[in-house]
């Protein structure tokens, strides 16, 4: 069956050429890759804004290079969309990215280098690593997507290493300032980042002309729950490696228990309305 595209470019049929991935897979890629590009655009802006805060010429150059690499990622991801014929959006649509960008700018405006490094190099890069690791598993995605994601992953891991090195140095100089910056950044940025581990959106699907309800992570053999746990594990690992004490990080991680709104659960009830967390079908007669 021939595939066709909607006026905006989103796929509505099955792929030609023996690719047995269905339209749901490419719609999901369209959604994920567009969101990834938005994150990369934000990263370019963040690194660019951070350059003047860096203390040495070498670190300024290093930061410019980081921005340049994020530009390269945008081009790679856009090319992937063209090659596999799925729509990609090359501007920031989802409000979470805009909010993170705003918080970063606030920190930069105050000259708060630790907060800037934490937001971009630790928090955002950690989440990027989870994303690109997921996409780089060829068995779950496709050869082209896996190759692009693997290339980008190498850069993001390097950015994380750079961030860890910078944060460690700052922690040695002034641990209180850096820990305060972590608390400030965590409460502003982590709810936004975790809010994006979802297949629902504010308006990205409209922009891409993708049916929101058709998006399901089983197309890449994972699920929201797995991604959230992987993101949480990666975040904890990053904070450990950067040298933050568990006495500082444990309360921050505890606060993440509220990110899902602590929906009600229904254990052993025939509540036809379901808990706040699930559909009536899945709630019926059991727990959701």
């Amino acid at each position: 069956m021939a595939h066709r595209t909607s006026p905006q470019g989103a796929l509505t049929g099955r792929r030609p050429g023996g690719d047995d991935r269905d339209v749901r897979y490419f719609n999901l890629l369209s959604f994920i890759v567009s969101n990834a590009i938005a994150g990369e655009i934000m990263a370019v802006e963040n690194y660019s804004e951070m350059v003047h805060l860096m203390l040495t010429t070498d670190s300024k150059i290093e930061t410019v290079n980081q921005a340049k690499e994020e530009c390269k990622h945008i081009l790679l991801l856009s090319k992937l969309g063209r090659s596999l014929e799925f729509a990609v959006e090359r501007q920031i649509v989802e409000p979470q990215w805009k909010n993170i960008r705003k918080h970063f700018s606030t920190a930069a405006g105050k000259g708060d280098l630790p907060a800037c490094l934490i937001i971009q190099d630790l928090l955002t890069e950690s989440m990027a690593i989870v994303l690109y690791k997921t996409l780089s598993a060829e068995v779950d995605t496709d050869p082209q997507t896996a190759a692009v994601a693997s290339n980008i992953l190498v850069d993001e891991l390097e950015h994380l290493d750079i961030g860890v090195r910078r944060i460690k140095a700052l922690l040695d100089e002034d641990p209180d300032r850096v820990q305060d910056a972590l608390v400030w950044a965590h409460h502003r940025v982590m709810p936004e980042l975790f809010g994006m581990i979802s297949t629902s959106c504010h308006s990205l699907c409209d922009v891409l002309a993708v049916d929101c309800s058709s998006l399901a992570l089983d197309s890449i053999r994972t699920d929201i729950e797995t991604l959230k746990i992987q993101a949480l594990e990666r975040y904890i690992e990053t904070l450990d490696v950067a040298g933050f004490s568990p006495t500082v990080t444990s309360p921050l991680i505890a606060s993440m228990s509220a990110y899902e709104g602590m929906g009600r659960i229904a254990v052993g009830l025939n509540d036809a309305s379901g808990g706040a967390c699930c559909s009536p079908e899945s709630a019926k007669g059991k727990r959701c």
Partner: protein
Amino acid sequence: MVASSRPRSIVLTGGKGYLGGLIAASLLRDDTVGIVALVRPGVALAAFIEPIRAELEAQGGRFEAEYLDRIRLVELPPVEAFASLDKVVRESGADEIVHCAGCLDYFDRAALETVNIALTRALLEQSRRWGLRRFVYLSTAFSSGYIDGPVREVLHDEAANDPTDYTRTKRLAERLVAASGIPFLIIRPSIVIGDSRDGHYSGKRYGLYQLWSGIERLLCREWHPEIHALGARQPVVLVHQDAFQNAFLAAFRLLPDDSIFNLVSARDSSPTMRQLWDLWMRDVLRPRATYYYDRMADIPLRKLNSRQRALLALASVNLEIASHPWQFETTTLGWLRQRGLHFLDATFESVAVCQRLFVDSSEPIQAFFDANRQQLADRSEAFDVDVPIGP
């Protein structure tokens, strides 16, 4: 003075929530009072009554048609427009308010201040204007903050240390209620868990259910040969939801004005955190070895498997609250029991009923059993760790 005259109708806040819904179910089934339920904009009557119907059916009853005539849903306006409620409250003949609405998000200080303090203050002002006879406030057993010695059934002084801003804001709200000049009843339930008879539960992932959900999500994705847990031998003060309902009704009907009531199970028969973990180890996780610590600070978090680490961190606040040696005055509970209150204390056995239902109805846990049947240990050793492991 014992409150003997029955209200025709009450104003209820938080009726869409877990405890408010239990209270609404009790009042509909066991009383004749009408309910003016103040709800958030957009809450439809069907959505309001469905959890109540489910709860009544789970308890072997049914949602009678006449209950509908006794419920009136009213949208809660912004605080500055509370006067718009005057007409409906006067028409209903309401002469008491049961204020259950609260914010439980430990980490959202602004929301805690807005809901637990500012909303309570506004409702108190409004209740004065309406000439209500009594203000019933649902607080928490932990509103004292961390204090040495027993938690008395009096207003608390400022605490040197609070588990969270939640307990602090509930304590401040209690003071507002007591200082309002309106006769009051403050009810302080501890951690509410499922029904003692069959374990059914429809609350949020708070308290014990936060820990259980965390175990399900983080420890049941793969088998762990060793598990590190915060397992102090302090009794965990729980209250079953059916006991909560019975105690609420008795307090509502019988307690004199200006009462403060610690609604908690007996400490002596309460399970310890160590026993509750043991139950998980024995029935579900079945590691080869479990290492127990008395304090979170003793756990070598960085050396742990990342999922165990994540679980302990996510549940740290509630685990620390549960590990505190709480002792509650239970004079009022004793007084109510003497007057016929049937109150079943939470025990190891009754909590096990709740856990069993949780486990049996969990698809991830059943999948964990299927995937790890070969590895689950027949015998599990437990070790008490007094100091951090390793250098």
